[in-house]
């Protein structure tokens, strides 16, 4: 997987459009999902993914990959989403402002159940401050280590871990409240 990415990056650096297309095809859904979870707005999320790939394409020939490609692209999307979120008024989406995001729910039964879970999680995450949501999503959905998350967000590992802990505590308490209600 990692070797595959290294080969793709090597070809991409030599100006291969096919390599760029493959990279896009490989990570587009994952990155769009990340952007949607962070921004809770599909059109904004699409813009972020678009900008990330255009800027990535502009680095051909000089791009150097230090970690994983998925981690790098996820970091770019997270940074782009943070910038958009700052621009958006009322960045920390409250309960009132939280709108349901449409997820793709294919398949009759299993798909519907998964979709319901995703909607539920989306509603829960919407109540968290943006910084906590960001750390939780990067760590649990994008499978990034705290060290990578901290590096991506420009904070210390301790800060990233404490944001995660507070976020998870809050998420659990909101979840339990909604269940008991």
């Amino acid at each position, binding site marked *: 997987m990692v070797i595959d990415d290294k080969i793709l990056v090597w070809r991409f650096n030599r100006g291969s459009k096919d390599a760029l297309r493959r990279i896009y095809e490989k990570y587009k859904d994952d990155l769009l999902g990340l952007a949607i979870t962070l921004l809770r707005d599909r059109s904004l999320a699409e813009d972020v993914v678009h900008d990330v790939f255009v800027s990535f394409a502009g680095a*051909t020939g000089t791009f150097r990959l230090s970690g994983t490609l998925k981690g790098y692209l996820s970091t770019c999307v997270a940074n782009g989403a943070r910038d958009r979120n700052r621009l958006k008024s009322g960045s920390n989406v409250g309960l009132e402002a939280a709108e349901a995001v449409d997820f793709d729910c294919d398949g009759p039964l299993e798909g519907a159940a998964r979709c319901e879970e995703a909607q539920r999680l989306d509603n829960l995450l919407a109540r968290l401050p943006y910084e906590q949501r960001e750390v939780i999503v990067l760590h649990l959905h994008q499978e990034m280590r705290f060290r990578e998350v901290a590096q991506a967000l420009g904070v210390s590992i301790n800060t990233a871990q404490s944001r995660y802990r507070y976020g998870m505590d809050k998420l659990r308490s909101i979840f339990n409240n909604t269940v008991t209600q």
Partner: protein
Amino acid sequence: MKSTENMEQFVRDAKPHVTTGESMDRRVLSDSFAAMDERLAAVRPGPPTKILASRIMRFAAAAVIIIAMVGLLIVYKCPRQQVANQKVLKIAKSPAEMLTAWSLMTAYRHGGIEALDNQCDKAFEMSGQQRDTLNMKELLAEIEIDLERTEL
């Protein structure tokens, strides 16, 4: 009540599955390709980069450098005079051949009067004879005798 571990598992499992639309794919790829073309046009490689980019050209460049270095070494290690003298000595194997007009002229052209002198010394050395030392007066007298003979 959900524990922390359960909550983590719930968040992992409930990861939303989204797919990009066809229009988005088209937009992203066309803009990305345009950005890529722009970048490639901006960093179009110069001749040195082009040479280094091709493996064959790299070998050829390395060979040229090595040949040039060997040539320089030969020139500096063996100055022109020595090369010329050696050349004449190699061609002319006997003392008689070494003292022909052609051999002496070649030596003179390559190394001047010193090379000519060296070649004569070498020829005498090979024949086992000692070159007579002439002073200037004797030399001039010999030339005069020769001139008188030719006039007669």
